[in-house]
């Protein structure tokens, strides 16, 4: 789950990281009032969960409250990469001398958190990592010990930070580590962390990604989720504990297991079709979950056929079949259904589905071919 800049910076501030004075506004009038309060030049920043806000014109400098109101009014009507701007952050504009990158993320390969910093801040860090990896200093953190003081100093020295800033920088590193750890983040990033003209460190931009699996212990953070970034079908699916991702094709897929679901998509493509979605009904999926899954797939008007592929392990095929039948009674699908059931209680499942006039398949390839054929017959 992604947090907005203003949410991330509010969290950082709680951990003692200096952020610019400012507040979030949902209307141009509010933005004007905030600018008046701040009494200085302000930056109006669109709050959308995509990169490249600046290039899209979603970050603008305002010299006075009137300009703040005008710019906020413009930005609040924008769509950036398909996402509507619903809020703007109005921040006191900083006089920037130097921009630094500072972030903590999980290093999968090393199985430890890593703190990364670069004197080349303010730009896309992935680009820096790709083109000039030597400009990024990385220090791995023992998750059982946490960030050590010497590690923060090593990072400061590694980016040639002037010594006068080491103490403040170290405090920011520790604050960022605590925020990352306490919030179960998978990324906590300040880009840029600036040295201001009056020689202070300031976190001008912030970004946090949170671990969805840990949200159960952070109900306050879970509430911050921005639903704009997800298709409504994806939001609906999450309510039922289904893992669903909408795609652009026309063959709906219902599969148990993520690897098999991806494989089913790949095989559909291999045989000339286009998957309409990724859907993992999970292990031990009961019939109500399956029914919800079918409703979600069929709510997409592009879907011209549905391929059900279940290899029973934890999931029992007869239970899946019952779910399908109950969902069919409810939504009455008008597109062909191709089913393939193998594994635990598959025979009972097949027997139940045989009565419902479904196209059945023995192998994965057979199922994919039949689904692709069903779509071309149905067009």
């Amino acid at each position: 789950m992604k947090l907005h800049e203003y949410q991330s910076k509010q969290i950082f501030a709680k951990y003692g990281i200096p952020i610019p004075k400012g507040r979030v506004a949902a209307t141009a009038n509010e933005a004007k009032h905030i600018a008046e309060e701040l009494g200085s030049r302000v930056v109006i920043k669109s709050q959308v969960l995509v990169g490249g806000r600046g290039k899209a014109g979603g970050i603008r400098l305002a010299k006075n409250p009137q300009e703040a109101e005008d710019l906020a009014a413009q930005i609040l009507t924008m769509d950036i990469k398909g996402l509507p701007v619903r809020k703007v952050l109005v921040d006191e504009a900083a006089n920037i001398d130097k921009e630094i990158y500072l972030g903590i993320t999980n290093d999968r390969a090393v199985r430890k958190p890593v703190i990364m910093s670069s004197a080349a801040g303010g730009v896309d860090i992935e680009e820096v990592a790709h083109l000039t990896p030597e400009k990024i200093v990385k220090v791995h953190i023992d998750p059982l010990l946490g960030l050590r003081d010497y590690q923060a100093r090593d990072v400061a020295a590694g980016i040639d930070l002037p010594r006068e800033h080491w103490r403040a920088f170290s405090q920011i590193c520790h604050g960022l580590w605590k925020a990352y750890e306490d919030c179960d983040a998978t990324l906590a990033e300040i880009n840029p962390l600036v040295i201001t003209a009056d020689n202070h460190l300031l976190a001008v931009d912030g970004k946090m990604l949170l671990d969805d699996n840990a949200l159960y212990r952070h109900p306050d953070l879970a509430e911050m989720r921005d639903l704009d970034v997800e298709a409504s079908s994806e939001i609906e699916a999450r309510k039922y504990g289904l893992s669903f991702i909408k795609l652009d094709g026309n063959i709906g897929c219902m599969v148990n297991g993520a690897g098999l679901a991806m494989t089913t998509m790949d095989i559909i493509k291999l045989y000339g079709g286009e998957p309409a979605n990724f859907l993992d009904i999970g292990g031990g999926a009961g019939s109500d979950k399956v029914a919800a899954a079918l409703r979600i797939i069929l709510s997409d008007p592009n879907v011209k056929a549905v391929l059900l592929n279940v290899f029973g392990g934890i999931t029992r095929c007869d239970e899946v079949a019952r779910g399908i039948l109950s969902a069919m009674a409810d939504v009455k699908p008008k597109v062909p259904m191709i089913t393939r059931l193998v594994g635990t209680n598959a025979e009972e499942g097949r027997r139940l589905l045989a009565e419902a006039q479904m196209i059945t398949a023995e192998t994965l390839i057979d199922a994919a071919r039949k689904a692709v054929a069903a779509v071309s017959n149905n067009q």
Partner: protein
Amino acid sequence: MSILVNKNTRLLVQGITGNEGLFHTQQMVAYGTNVVAGVTPGKGGEWVLDGKVPVFDSVKMAVEASGANTSVNFVPARFAPDSIFEAADAGISLIVCVSEGIPVQDMMRVRNYLDQKKVRLVGPNCPGLLTPGEAKVGIIPGDIAIPGDIGVVSRSGTLTYEVLYALMLVNRGVSTCVGIGGDPINGTDFIDCLGMFEADPHTEKVVLIGEIGGSDEEKAAEFIADHMTKPVVSFIAGQTAPPGKRMGHAGAIVEGGSGLASDKIKALLAAGVKVASHPEEIPSLL
């Protein structure tokens, strides 16, 4: 023969009285796995499966009473990390964690702790292990594989079953199948399993099933090129997966241009691995 689990495995089931724990204990016992004990805190003294398996309050008590050397873990995600620490501290040397949805920071703490204790973890978010004819530790259906000389290692669950089933249909048997799980941070990885299969005199060929996300397949390719004499056949899932979206498994995500299926396939091909275009093609490449 086999790696990791066999007829000498003395298995302990953590979370044995839960729905899934009990169902799969029954399946494992029916398969012939030597299930010696179960643990559910607060239910010590009970017996399950008509008095076949005793339940203990703690792993320590269960190990003392039963001599268990391997644990399979069905404890729900929010309590699973604690139960893994408990098993490691009680002297279990192989822990197989089936549970899905453990927070990644918890797993980093678990993994770094286990590394210090030299305890092997398989999983989490994995189907476990199957040594056909000897032991089934986890949830892999027992009737979809026969004993043989092919080692199987996979990040997936049901996709692994597809492959086992496809092998069985053409009468090809398996030495051991290891599901290492779909989480970004896990215990045993591809390289660990490839090394064990290379050393196992009864494994002749290896099937490696990967998916998008991370760089474990690339590292496996490097290991295969440098250390494997046995042929390896592979399949990588997720060629059509869009970037930036987590495909069910917490670890299956293409981010920042890395973790692509195409890169993994390229690396494996360069290491001399035959890569199948779909799982049912695997038997013909062996």
